[in-house]
């Protein structure tokens, strides 16, 4: 079973979703939760069977699909993708468990299970086309979730979300076809396998073009600064569960793909574009933080803060060293946990008051103390308080980028501190002061169903903030091998110096240790 654990992880939810059509709509929630728990258990099983000392791919599966065109069904997991898989399983589980009363709940749960299949597929695919299949397929359930259960502008928001990402990924597809063609020219054989592509050393000008093509697909998904306009609409209109999955997992597809595709495949282009991308990331951090401060709707505040933190992830990724990339992967998980939790928390208050406007609240800390506590914790984590999960990731990301540019890192660091302002302001408006609206006086505090989702997230936030090692270590191992690969592959001087050579530095430490003896 362990040999095919990834296929099981991908297709178990799909199978469950298909069979779910037969279940009566009153019982579907229990079914969804059960399937979610089984899937999460499977993902934990994957984690515990994972050998964290190995830096390469594990549990690989290989089935030929279109041999004459080099398309194979290849799966595999390493330290980079492992925790995102676990996170995806976890969020689908608690997402279904905490689902509040929705109309057509059966369609919703079946859609969520299909969405889970696509997420699992994206993070475990090791073939360009298989990756693309799941990447595109993930749009359909999300389109339906936003379009069918969303707010008044839901159709506009969902179509915008779909078309934006679809257009970007088609450009990426052309890039992939070029990549396969170059591989064909080099070896005489078509291949879309990512591990094959890693071995291909391309001239710099081709790298630049291909980097741009892949960038279109990934940057729209993240979303990076000029392409981010679909996200506020999607978040603003989506139901709580949609926002949670979107922020926690779907956006990570873009940043994950940067690490999986762009960096190891185009090391020289990545170095070439390091500063433009970093500047975009910093604009993204500062600009969205400023927009977030201007919002009246608490969900939009959370949405923009989520975009803002994605900027830090990009910054860490493009640091091109072990600290930066490990930090950005850790921050992906942290951001998933924290922003997912924040969207859940916004959903809690929305269910009670059916408004997300901050001026409708005030003094909530008196009536909902437990809610205020958890919200406060998550807000602190989002701001990047030490000893919370976000701090570890942000610190490492910035530390990594500090080696490339002091000034830009300083700017980003200041922007993050400034980012605390809008979160604290929002918290103040909602929770402190006198109760200004009579309706708020008798609001019930968080109930058991909501606690089921929120408590584990709170525990993770603190636990991984204090002791990040169990996650950081496997990530580090895989990242080291990728950084080394990038260093070995790079052809320009610039790239050779920007990307550290781990083997050499290891040798130096060894030899200096010997001298000391």
């Amino acid at each position, binding site marked *: 079973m362990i040999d095919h654990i990834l296929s099981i992880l991908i297709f178990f939810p799909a199978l469950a979703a298909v069979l779910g059509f037969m279940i009566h709509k009153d019982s579907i929630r229990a079914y969804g939760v059960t399937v979610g728990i089984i899937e999460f258990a499977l993902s934990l099983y994957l984690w515990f069977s994972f050998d964290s000392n190995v830096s390469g791919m594990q549990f690989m599966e290989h089935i*030929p699909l*279109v*041999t*004459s065109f080099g398309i194979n069904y290849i799966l595999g997991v390493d330290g980079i993708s492992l925790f995102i898989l676990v996170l995806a399983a976890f969020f689908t589980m608690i997402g279904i468990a905490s689902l509040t009363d929705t109309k057509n709940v059966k369609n919703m749960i079946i859609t969520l299970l299909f969405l889970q299949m696509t997420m699992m597929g994206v993070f475990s695919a090791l073939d360009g086309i298989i990756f693309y*299949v799941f990447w595109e397929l993930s749009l359909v359930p999300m*389109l339906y979730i936003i379009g069918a259960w969303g707010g008044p502008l839901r159709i506009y928001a969902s*179509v915008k979300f779909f078309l934006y990402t679809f257009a970007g990924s088609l*450009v990426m597809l*052309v890039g992939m076809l070029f990549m396969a063609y170059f591989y064909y020219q080099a070896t005489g054989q078509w291949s879309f396998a990512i591990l094959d592509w890693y071995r291909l050393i391309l001239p710099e000008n081709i790298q630049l073009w291909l980097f741009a093509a892949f960038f279109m697909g990934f940057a729209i998904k993240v979303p990076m600064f000029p392409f981010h306009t679909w996200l506020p609409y999607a978040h603003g209109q989506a139901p709580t569960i949609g926002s949670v999955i979107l922020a926690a997992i779907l956006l990570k597809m873009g940043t994950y793909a940067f690490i999986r595709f762009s960096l190891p495949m185009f090391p020289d282009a990545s170095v070439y574009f390091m500063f433009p991308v970093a500047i975009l990331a910093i604009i993204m951090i500062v600009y969205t933080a400023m927009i977030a401060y201007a919002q009246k709707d608490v969900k939009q505040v959370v949405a923009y803060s989520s975009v803002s933190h994605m900027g830090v992830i990009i910054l860490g990724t493009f640091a091109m060293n072990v600290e930066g990339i490990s930090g950005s992967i850790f921050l992906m998980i942290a951001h998933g946990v924290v922003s997912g939790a924040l969207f859940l928390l916004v959903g809690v208050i929305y269910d009670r008051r059916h408004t997300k406007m901050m001026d409708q609240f005030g003094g909530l800390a008196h009536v909902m103390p437990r809610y205020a506590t958890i919200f406060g914790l998550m807000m602190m984590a989002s701001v990047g308080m030490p000893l919370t999960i976000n701090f570890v990731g942000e610190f490492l990301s910035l530390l990594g980028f500090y080696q490339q540019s002091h000034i830009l890192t300083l700017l980003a660091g200041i922007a993050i501190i400034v980012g605390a302002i809008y979160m604290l302001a929002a918290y103040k408006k909602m929770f402190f002061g006198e109760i200004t609206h009579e309706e708020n006086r008798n609001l019930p505090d968080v109930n058991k169903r909501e606690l089921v989702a929120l408590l584990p997230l709170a525990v993770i936030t603190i636990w991984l903030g204090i002791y990040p090692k169990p996650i950081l270590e496997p990530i580090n191992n895989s990242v080291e091998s990728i950084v080394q690969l990038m260093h070995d592959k790079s052809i320009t001087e610039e790239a050779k110096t920007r990307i550290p050579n781990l083997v050499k530095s290891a040798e130096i430490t060894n030899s200096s240790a010997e001298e000391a003896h």
Partner: protein
Amino acid sequence: MLEPINVSLESLNLMTLSPMLIPIIGALLILVVDMFKSGLDKTLYVVLSILFLIMDFGALTGSAGIFMQDGTVMGMFDMMLIDGLAILSQFIIVGASMLFIPLALTNKRFHEFSYPEFFALFLFMIAGFQFMVSTDNLILVFVGLETSSLALYTLIAMHNRTKSFEAAVKYFTMGALAAGFFSFGSMIFYALTGSIEISQIATVLAANQYVDIGYVLVAVTFLLASFGFKLSLVPFHTWAPDVYEGSSAAMAGYMSIVPKIAAFVVTMRLFEFLIHSGIVWLEMVLYIFVVLTMTMANIWALVQTDVKRMLAYSSVSHAGFVMAAILIGTTQSNSALFLYWILFSFTNLGSFSMLWMSRQKHLPEHQSSDHSYDKFAGMIKTAPVAASIMALFMLSLAGLPPFALFWGKLYMISSAVTGGYTVLALIMALNSAIAGYYYLKLIVYMFMKEPVTGNEGHIYVSNATLALKSIIGFAAIGTIFAFVALNPLLEFITSFVYNSGY
């Protein structure tokens, strides 16, 4: 005194004719049956047609076997040319026809299916298409083209609605113009080279190094216009939406597939040597046609309010997309054309059949046409299975993986990449994104809007019978599981295209 003409029967190679003769015999037989006893039920004719199409398919399999062993076969004074292109396209023609003809078994009674002539004409039309693709001879192409087109005009008119008469007349007028262009173009080629066989024309033109380039260009212009009409390339596409709207949905779906593949094969034979002759003008004109057809048809499709017209523009756009294969002109792109068209025929026939299944004879008051977007609003609530299948076809047409048409698009764009047409590859990709919008529009109506009052689920399946449902189920399964059959299909197509020298 003249020598007695002595032709040995073996040199005629009558085997090459057998796939075309089978539907002709079938058509005659249907007429004979009707002569002996009229007023027989349509099911008889449908089954007879299917039987003959199966035999036709069997004969084609035989030809394919011969081709794999001996390569290209000529016959009938070298009029017939059975190469890989001919066999592949005949497979598509006959296969799509087999999927189409059971659509006549509707729940409601329609005028045209009560005539046995409908089925006889249908089989004659197939024979015409088969002749058209399996010859190198421009005159035989012309004869095949006219046989099939005249039959097709009649089939459209037999639907017996005001709009279908209009459609038939419109199609006829345009078709006559195209036929005129075709014969004029062939005439110039004959005058230049003294031959009406494409391979001969190519040899002679290459031998004298295109000295009469001006005349060649005139001839090419006429032929391009003629096939532009048949393939509905922009700006010769204007008939397409009206004709699709006027004919029955099933017929419209059929028209978007079978006549076009026949025309594509002839175009491929004709332009293969012209593209590679290095005439820059021709390459530019084709490039412009391809880009215009893809882009403009997509933009027009965006603003349609009727699903059938949207699908009509969408198939114009798909034709432009596939026309790119002829522009690129490599073995990979020519194989991509066939792969694309096979996958397209599944998907498009499926989506038109869904319209056909929901055909109403009398329009309710709130509906302006039978296929308005409003009709499909909230379909997921009233007819969830039908809505899901329709959405599946739409997603496949939009090129969303892993559904059928994605693989066609993938291979086609890849052939543009390998052929050195980078910009074209990007244009093709971005056009798929534009097209995503109008396919999505139908999905939005079906899944995200509230149903119109007074609209119950049964109207979507009002025309359904077991036969229709099986065809749609077949198309849906083919659309979802295309990736399973992809590898053998691709190898088969590539070997056939490669061995015919394209």
